[in-house]
């Protein structure tokens, strides 16, 4: 609250004028007795509604060994409920119960078998022993039961009705601090959103668990097909030591550890009305939506508030340097620094700092004759804003490896100039214009704007969003220098370098001749 107050004070200091109005967000809010929050941005003439439901849960709720479990839960929440996705729940239910019981036996057998494997190597095979006669037979029985349950399955049922009623942009996302389900519907059909999502929130049934686990494998392989992925993961784990923000969405070894029981626990703990926010933007009114939401979500009882404590990153205390050798990834050098999360009054200034540094960096590289593409961003895994400390990344991808040293010198020199306050008014104006125009493009797109509103609610509170955007207009050169001096210190710096592997010379090559 104190942080919000500071930011509101910043906003109050804005001059009145045209620029200020683009940051006004006339969001209307209603809090239901069970804690469910409804946010509506009314756009009277819009024929459609961008609708999203956010739950505060994500990678920050995961435990070591089960990274990606929150993302997996999102997949499982597409498998239907006891009212959608089954032709006969009464007949299917005993099969599901039997599968659950067998999984408990499987967990017990895996625990027992853990000590059967005494020689645990460094690089492979130091997890549980995966196969025992009992474990194999339990798995086979679970697979057989899953197959027998298929006779009652109605696949795709949670998606189909959105599509039938004109739903588009149907998707779901799980990141570090939120899970969301989205749809864009004609105004006349918005009730189907409440029907499907209230059901998903209360009645999800875990089905095709092992098949869906293989989809995670597919997505993981897809990620690894991009040469930048393993490098980015190595950088993230060098920048952050304990905070889950820096974890990837699970390794394949994590996928093997998932259990239905743990997924069910995650589901039940997080999907409670007092941990949920609905965001609507379009041709609807708050007054019209309240009774509809009440009809579908009103019966849900408030539940214990899920804990939001997360791991606290230790103070950075040493400069780190990662050398990554790759034949596939273009050579690059980058510097990353931990910066505060959304909600901290300085966080908007980092957006401006990032834009202005990118402008300066491009110019400096050009002047130094380094053919390179700079990028300043705050990306960690798939997200760029967090309610927790994360990193600001200053990246330079060079055309030729021989330019790496020069690029690093330029990069560090530009950061030093930013620290010393050498930011020109012209660059600052252009940086602010870029940020303002990016925000205007968001305003035009209800689906993107609804995401931002919900994301800010998940990270902090939604009211921070307009304040945050407006505060960037007020960033002064002194603010940039101050935050750069505070945060861009050697102890908080991680340097990453990508270069080609060294190739040992042949005996008859070069100097040997």
């Amino acid at each position, binding site marked *: 609250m104190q942080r919000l107050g500071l930011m509101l004070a910043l906003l109050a200091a804005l001059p009145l004028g045209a620029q200020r109005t*683009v940051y006004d967000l006339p969001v209307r809010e209603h809090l239901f007795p069970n804690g469910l929050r409804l946010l509506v941005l009314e*756009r009277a003439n819009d*024929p*459609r509604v961008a609708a999203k439901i956010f739950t505060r849960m994500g990678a920050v709720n995961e435990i070591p060994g089960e990274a990606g479990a929150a993302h997996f839960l999102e997949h499982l929440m597409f498998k239907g409920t*006891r009212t*959608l996705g089954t032709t006969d729940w009464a007949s299917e239910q005993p099969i*599901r*119960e039997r599968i*659950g019981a067998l999984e*408990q036996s499987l967990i*017990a057998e895996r625990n027992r078998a853990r000590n059967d494997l005494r020689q645990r190597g460094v690089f492979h095979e130091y997890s549980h022993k995966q196969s025992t006669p009992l474990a194999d037979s339990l798995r086979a029985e679970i697979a057989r039961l899953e197959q027998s349950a298929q006779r009652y399955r109605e*696949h*795709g049922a949670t998606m*189909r*009705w959105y*599509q*039938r*009623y*004109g*739903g*588009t942009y*149907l998707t779901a996302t799980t990141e570090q601090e939120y899970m969301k389900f989205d749809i*864009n519907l*004609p105004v*006349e*059909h918005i009730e*189907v959103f409440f*029907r*499907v999502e*209230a059901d998903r929130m*209360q009645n999800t049934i875990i089905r*095709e668990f*092992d*098949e869906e686990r293989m*989809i995670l*494998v*597919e997505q993981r*392989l*897809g990620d*690894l*097909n*991009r*040469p*930048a992925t393993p490098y980015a993961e190595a950088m993230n784990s060098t920048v952050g030591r304990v905070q889950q923000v820096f974890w990837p969405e699970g390794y394949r070894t994590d996928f093997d550890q998932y259990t239905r*029981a743990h997924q069910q626990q995650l589901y*039940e703990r997080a999907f409670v009305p007092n941990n949920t926010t609905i965001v609507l933007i379009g041709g609807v009114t708050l007054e019209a939506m309240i009774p509809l939401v009440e009809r*579908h979500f009103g*019966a849900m009882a408030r539940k214990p508030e899920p804990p939001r404590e997360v791991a606290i990153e230790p103070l950075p205390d040493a400069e780190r340097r990662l050398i990554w050798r790759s034949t*596939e990834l*273009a050579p690059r050098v980058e510097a990353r620094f931990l910066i505060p999360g959304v909600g901290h009054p300085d966080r908007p200034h980092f957006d401006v700092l990032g834009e202005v540094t990118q402008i300066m960096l491009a110019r400096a590289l050009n002047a130094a004759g380094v053919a390179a*593409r700079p990028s300043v961003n705050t990306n960690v895994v798939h997200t760029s804003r967090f309610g927790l400390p994360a990193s600001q990344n200053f990246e330079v*991808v060079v*055309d030729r490896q021989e330019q790496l040293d020069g690029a690093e010198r330029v990069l560090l020199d530009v950061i030093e100039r930013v620290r010393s306050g050498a930011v020109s008014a012209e660059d600052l104006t252009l940086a602010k214009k*870029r940020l*303002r*125009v990016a925000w*205007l*493009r968001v*305003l*035009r797109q209800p689906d993107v704007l609804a995401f931002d509103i919900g994301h800010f609610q998940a990270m902090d509170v939604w009211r921070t969003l307009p304040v945050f955007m407006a505060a960037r207009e007020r960033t002064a050169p002194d603010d940039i220098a101050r935050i750069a001096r505070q945060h861009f210190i050697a102890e908080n710096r991680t340097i990453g370098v990508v270069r080609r592997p060294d190739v040992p010379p042949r005996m008859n090559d070069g100097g040997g001749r």
Partner: protein
Amino acid sequence: MTRQWSCCLTLGLMLALPFSNGRAQTMVHPRDMRMPSPPSPRPDPAVFRHQVGTSTAYVVEDRQAPMVTVRAFVRTGYGGAPDAAVPRAVERALRAGPSSMAPGAFSREVDAMVGEWRVTMGPEVTELSLDVPSEDARRAIALLVATLRGPRFMNVQAGQAPSTLRGATATGGSGPVLYEGSLQLAVDILNEQLLGASAYGGLATTAVTAAAAQTFHAAHFGPSSIVFAVAGDIAAADARAGLAEAVAGWSGGQAALRRPAVTPTPAPARPAGREIHLYDADKLQGWVVMGHTLPPVPLQDRAALEVMNYIIGGGHFDTRLFRELRDKRGLANTGGGYPEWFDRGPGTYTLRTYGRPDVIPFLVELTLREVDKMRTDLVTQDELDIARGALADGVFAMRYADSYATSRSLAEEHARNGDHTESASYQRRVRAVTREQVRDVARRYVDPERFQIVIVGPRDAIGKAKHWESSKPLSSFGRIVSADIR
């Protein structure tokens, strides 16, 4: 024993919890929900249409944010010449901005506006767009039209043109490596197999002089061959005045107004039947793209063909392919179908999926199986209802969901067809599609025996793969032709 009881208790609680809410709640099945039908999403085009000299413009005001998007649709593309290389050279010139500005000045000005500049050439229509803050709207209109009138022509060396197999291989910082294992490579290879002999394939491998590109431009680019779209925070009168000023004194483009003869659809590359083109790539997954050419589709068949494709693979999360490949079996992240037809030349019908090497032959088998089913069996009434609703109230409605989409859709349709009769009847035509019509268009337009199948991935692993659910090797789906990417 205590632990066992504890496990059972936990399990019992877990199963019981979802049903233990404070109040009972009745869930009406979505099928039975009574909700009003949305009105037709498409506005009357005449409300937004303006005549600017010999050009047509659609202007839709929008005060949501102080931004403006200016677009132009030109009635020509890379299918407009016997060799696609010449129009592609014009595309390249358009991307570089107007020749009246010093080299680099155009991109600097766009950067200063924080504008987004895009040029997209298809076989029959070319689209240019510039999105800027409204304070720069008049300047954006002037820049876009100046580019249309006199783009920065240059000589193009063989293989330099954009969006070709060779071109894409040669570009991008980390592009070559990524491209070798990508869907785009597989799509490009298939297109080359199917349309390589036709300008509609878009391949541009020959050298083009600036003079040749200029000649094509003079014949096809003129105010009467262009339809403009302006949307955003600008008064219609201002937009019209800006366009009028920019196009003043400009003529030409008459060649684009003549409807050229239909380019014949190439004969199947290999009349002997289905072949599998297996390209080796050192990747963890393989891409599968299969399909054949598609002739121009008459209006009376289009709605049924869209419905057919929506059911098999065009409907995102709930399609037959999605259910079979992903939901039931966990084989692939996704799979889909993509019909692309044109008015005056050949298009393609393709199906795409990807997965780990050991499931690739089974992905091919399942995809072909679903295509066969579309041709032999009637779809269910539920499938038909869902596809019709999704296309009429979803996909089509999104084309008019806001001012920007509306102006774009109206202008593009006018550029393609010269009128709006197709969109006027779209919802009626889609809602009238029957189960029999779906099967009929599947039989007439999709022939799996003619498919060329391109697979890009780890060749050896794919070649040896077998799935427990099927013992069919890859070779049972067609003759395997192994090839190197280059």
